[in-house]
């Protein structure tokens, strides 16, 4: 861990804050499902734990972690898309009312 990690964290949190405050309440549930899917990125840690043959405990915990994270990735992206596909307009975007 280095100090530049802290910069990355703070800047990412700032970008996140800027973007997410602009997400309308209309899409707050898909937003949460989407962040859930993205949180599956812990795969990058769990894949290493599961596959680098460090010790038995590490492999076992790693495989469970891969399973849990992958479930979030697959389930999260599928359900977000399923929700977003239901949002339809009554009037086309460029013709108000």
């Amino acid at each position, binding site marked *: *861990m280095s100090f530049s990690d802290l910069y990355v964290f703070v800047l990412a949190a700032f970008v996140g804050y800027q973007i997410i405050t602009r997400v309308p309440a209309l899409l707050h549930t898909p937003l949460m499902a989407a962040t859930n899917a993205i949180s*599956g990125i812990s795969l990058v*840690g769990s894949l290493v734990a*599961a596959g680098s043959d460090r010790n038995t405990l590490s492999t076992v915990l790693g495989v469970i972690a891969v399973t849990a994270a992958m479930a979030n990735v697959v389930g999260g992206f599928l359900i977000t898309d399923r929700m977003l596909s239901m949002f339809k*307009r009554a009037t086309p975007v460029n013709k108000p009312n």
Partner: protein
Amino acid sequence: MNREVVSQLAYLAASILFIFGLRGLTKPDKARRGMMLAAIGMLIAIIGTLVKAEIISYGWILVGLVLGSLIGYPLGVWVPMTAMPQRIAFSHMFGALAATLVGVSEYYTDLTAGHGIGVAKMSALAFEVLFGALTVTGSFVAFGKLAEFLPGRPVTYRGQNAVNLVLAAIAVVLFVVVVLNPEASVAFYAMLVLATVIGLFLVLPIGGADMPVVISLMNSYAGLAASATGFAIGNDVLIIAGALDGASGFILSIVMSKAMNRSFSNILFGAFGSAPSVAARSAEGLTVASITAEDAALQLAYAHSVIVIPGYGLAVAQAQHQIRELADLIEKNGGEVRYAIHPVAGRMPGHMNVLLAEANVPYDRLYEMEEINSRFEETDLALVIGANDVVNPAARNDPGSPIYGMPILNADRARRVIVLKRGMSPGFAGIENELFYAENTSMLFGDAKASLQKLIAEVKAS
């Protein structure tokens, strides 16, 4: 090219795609494409990890990936929209579990390998395990309350807050011990166990109606735990994705607690509804005007502008399709129908919007509270279905009321108000609603779905 460079480039690409993906969610018509980008980002990150030189055996990885996909598919495709809150709580548990286990594995590996763990890395690991484990059990309790296999009412006992404070203090002490002396593995594992207990004790006393805030907080914690994992193993894409999740959950929990007129500390330590302190106005001496479906339908058929206010009662009655059918009929008669969505209309942020979208209500008819509140004055009819506290004018004008100050939909300012309600029972806050006794309000008693079906038949006939 060197393998490590490939992974780093993959992580950079994934980070950018995640940010673009979330940005897509700021516009409903761009959202699906945005999420497609985020999914591609995830795929790139996975491939970028699999090519790493450290990974030498793929058998168990494959087992995990296949098993995870098998669990994830039904969670994505089969879960009904009404069950979304418990489903999301369930996945927060999975996300936090993955982060926690990676933390334990990393700690154990470093410790048995005999090379020391620096203060910075140990802090990140301890933070990861503490927040991760707390989120696993906390989310499990939230899941249980929402799925109704655990009691939805607050589980409380005397001295609860004191017990929680002591547990938290012990956890902090263990945290410091293990950071200063990483060899103290007993402290590390004791902290892990304690964190699971704290997660349970933190959420058990919180009532079912406060779950939107809890889910959002858990979302934030799961993100922070993922970020801490990134710090511990020196992985920037984890830090970035975790920070995005953490920010999202944090913002949503603020939105939710504002909409409920509650502070964080009040939700976490308050056990709402246990003691309404100041005497709120009672409804004694007031009378309620009830209306028949025929008369209500007549008003609906001739209204030029209607605002529908759906509450959770509508979702419970599964009457979303009926309300859309009724709205179609009103529009056919030349009326205009809008929907006013209070932030806490469902059981999680934005839940009601999804339920209505599923019933084919166009999203440009769904209005947020701030957008629509000024329109009630010029509206012929406000139709309140299964909502109660969110339209209670006491929030505006009765300082003695427990919900005083809560942002509400100004349904009472519409020319006429029709409330569909099962009976005269008070809302979850347990307080009387003046709106039901107002001069311009008529009550249509009965099950929401049955009442709507009657209204549809009557409007068709008129």
